[in-house]
């Protein structure tokens, strides 16, 4: 009889419970138990970053996290960023600036860059390239990924700007 453990976690804001083998990787748990197949697995050694998700707001590679380690945590995957009705600025940026080709690494790259923009809302090209260290894209040559992230930063700044405008207009009333 295989030993299993009960876990409870929030994935993209939805509460999930499951009984899993302790050795089950978070990446496999997300993909196979929860059918969230946007998170991909490309290398098994935590180099390519295709499996990148957010765990309690931190960027992690879900192929080196056990599902049991995510017990009680908040996980955000690409499916939690935005959908076609309302794309996340990073998704908008990748679409507008041709930041993807085959698209296999893209979910992980986007999550990783959401992490960057949280810490550094206005990164330089060099800072973006440095922050891409944890991911491998074999198709794009990274240049349009850099453009995509810059575009996303601009969209976020504009959104914050208009939020402030609305807030201050509200305050004026």
């Amino acid at each position, binding site marked *: 009889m295989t030993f299993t453990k009960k876990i409870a976690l929030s994935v993209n804001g939805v509460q999930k419970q499951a009984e899993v*083998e302790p*050795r*089950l990787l978070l990446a*496999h748990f997300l*993909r*196979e138990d929860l*059918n*969230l*197949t*946007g*998170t*991909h*697995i*490309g*290398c*098994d*050694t935590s*180099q*390519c970053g*295709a499996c990148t998700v957010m765990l309690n707001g931190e960027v992690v590679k879900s192929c080196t996290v056990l599902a049991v380690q995510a017990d009680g945590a908040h996980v955000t*995957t*690409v*499916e939690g*960023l*935005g*959908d*076609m009705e309302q*794309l996340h600025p990073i*998704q908008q940026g*990748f*679409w*507008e600036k*041709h930041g*993807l*080709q*085959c*698209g*296999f*690494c*893209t*979910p992980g790259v*986007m999550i990783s860059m959401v992490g960057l923009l949280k810490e550094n809302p206005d990164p330089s*090209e*060099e800072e*973006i*390239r*440095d922050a*891409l*260290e944890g991911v*491998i*894209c*074999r*198709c*794009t*040559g*990274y*240049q*349009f*990924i*850099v453009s995509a992230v810059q575009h996303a930063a601009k969209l976020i700044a504009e959104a914050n700007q208009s939020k402030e405008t609305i807030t201050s207009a509200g305050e004026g009333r």
Partner: protein
Amino acid sequence: MAKLIGTPQKRKEDPKLITGNGHFTDDIKLPGMLYGAFLRSPHAHARILKIDASKALELPGVAAVYTGNDLVGKVKAVPAMWFLPGADLKPKDRSTLAVDKTRYAGECVALVVAENRYIARDALDLIEVDYEDLQAVVHQEAALLPEAPLVHDDVENNLALLWKAGEIPDEEFQNAEVVVRQRLYNQRVIPNPIETRGAVAQYNPGSGELTIWCTSQNPHIHRMVYADVLDISESKLQIVAPDVGGGFGSKIATYNEEAVIGHAARDLKRPVKWIEERKEHFMATTHARDEVIEVELAGKRDGTFTALRVKNTANLGAYLSTFGAGCPTIDFGLMVTGAYTIPKAEVVTYGVYTNTTPTDAYRGAGKPEAAFQIERIVDLFAQEIGMDPVELRQKNLIPKEAFPYSTAMGVSYDSGNYQDTLDRALDIAGYPALRKEQEKMREQGKLLGIGISTYVELCGFGPSKVAGAIGFQGGVWENSTVRVHPSGKVAVFTGTSPHGQGTATTFAQVVAEKLGISIDDIELISGDTRSVSMGWGTYGSRNTAVGGAAVSIATDRVIEKAKKIAAHELETSVEELEFSEGIFAVKGAPERKRSFREIAKSANFAWNLPDGVEPSLEGQSFFDPPNFVYPFGAHICVVEVDPQTGEIELKRYVAVDDIGRVINPMLAEGQVHGGIVQGIGQALWEGAVYSENGQLLSGTFMDYTMPKARFFPTIESHFIETPSPVNPLGAKGVGETGTTGAPPAVVNAVMDALRPFGIKDLDMPLTPEKVWRAMQNRRENA
């Protein structure tokens, strides 16, 4: 309708991919699905004495274990598919699952099928195999030596093939004022798409139908081959390439694993999935390049080239892969003279078996190697006669008035304007100023290097008659059906099988512009052998030049038929009708008109069709181009080498490419970036390294350096357009320009930087250690 061809358009492919709704092979989950895992040989060369799977079979959750003997008479080995006429070729197909011997580390020995991937992995550890280790041979030159162990007992000297082409230029070499010789090693590289290979197979015992979803660049080729090896009609075998996460040539080849998974599903009557791990990808998916190229260029002191002689000793690995024989011969050999007027040339290729993973196509397949050797030898020639490498190139480039140009290797370059791409690149880079800066930096002990490559490559495969003549086991025409629904929306079927190129968008641009409808009303259907009757897939930058051409012609046929219907409804003749912006209108009476959408409905409802016109509105084309296409360009790379550490900093990269007519400049530029980064990857970092006994030392991303974002400056990409005359779009192909142009540009730049040390050549990859050692060696011997 605004002009679409030639404009940047956001990709239709992207919404699903950016929202996590892509559908890749590993995303497929079927009821009752089992999971397969392959046991692979840890030895490069060994006799299999015994395989005992009994413990594995006892493990709860294991459904089956297959060994080579279990498959005899049930699954044939996948065959090689390129038999060169006139060559002395000794094909050895990869064994399905090794029976008595293993010939490279990573060769499949057994397949476990279990309830999930964890159990399958557990079971692999329980299979006991007795091996008798044999001496291995890894390097192709060592394998040719008389004392070398034999990879296949009946292949003498491990010589798998000997191929010769061109004319022997002995006289030209005897009379030459200058002869420059160089031995170059184009190292072994690994394609490494981020999605590894994989297959999911499902069998219906009632109908006898087998479906295999797999990571394929050419599902119809895979159907043709797997139908044969599994002995099933093509009508009963469906191959589907869902979203495919890159291929770069590695997903062209047919492999045993996919076929064996198909067999297991049929045998167990349950769906079976196998997804390659990255470690397996490194060991078992085809590698590429690995060619020792000895090149000699003859000419005059004034810089005129007179003849070229090339010997290529290519490592084919342990077995002949699908298109393995064609890469170092046809793909390489026909392009050795590059962009220059060299009146006579000869190529000899030795293809050698070794105890390594089989080699096959990787982005460019043979053409990057050809460009590399000619561009390196041209630089060395310039150095020998004391001429600027730009001036030497300008002197020998094929002039634009010479096109179509027949080369010494017997191919006809379709169209070109090589001088313009070079001039433009020099202009953008500010070449004279760069040379001055270099001089100034040298005075300060700094090592700036400027490298140039003016490449041309062969793309758009490519007349089927030629394919037959060169022994390619298949055709290379392309198929498209443009189907107009009653709503006026359009389905475009293509036999190409895109995997990241953005084809759904570029083809929609072509169709939408021609039909005068929105690209949102067009869907591309590809990658499924049930939907598309036949096709030859995506590789060799043939997607747009051949597949796109078929789409264009099929669309014209739709318009032709629609015009007949519109003319009938408007009570006029086809000749009196104009079609523009999606409206059929009578010449001189624009108020008498029908929209494309109205005609779509009329054609499908068929209430009032002219005599002799059948219902429905479809156009079909099976386009077989009259020639290949030959994209070309000039790349300039500027580097700085650290004299203390040997580290290379890429300072600038300028690419001016001529890919014929550009359909979507944004997508084309993306292809250029990706190609250049892969080309630079080969020049500076990437390389498969084997130990002497055939263990792959660079077997994960931790020890095989993949290009990362911070390694690169902004790539300055520009296009010049010289349309190709061989297809209606004038397109030439862009996917491989970067991997072809970049390695010589980068290596020429580094060698230019190292000139103060008197270093003429170093093998790729130019790692800091290698560069530092070379400099240190000179310092010590100075």
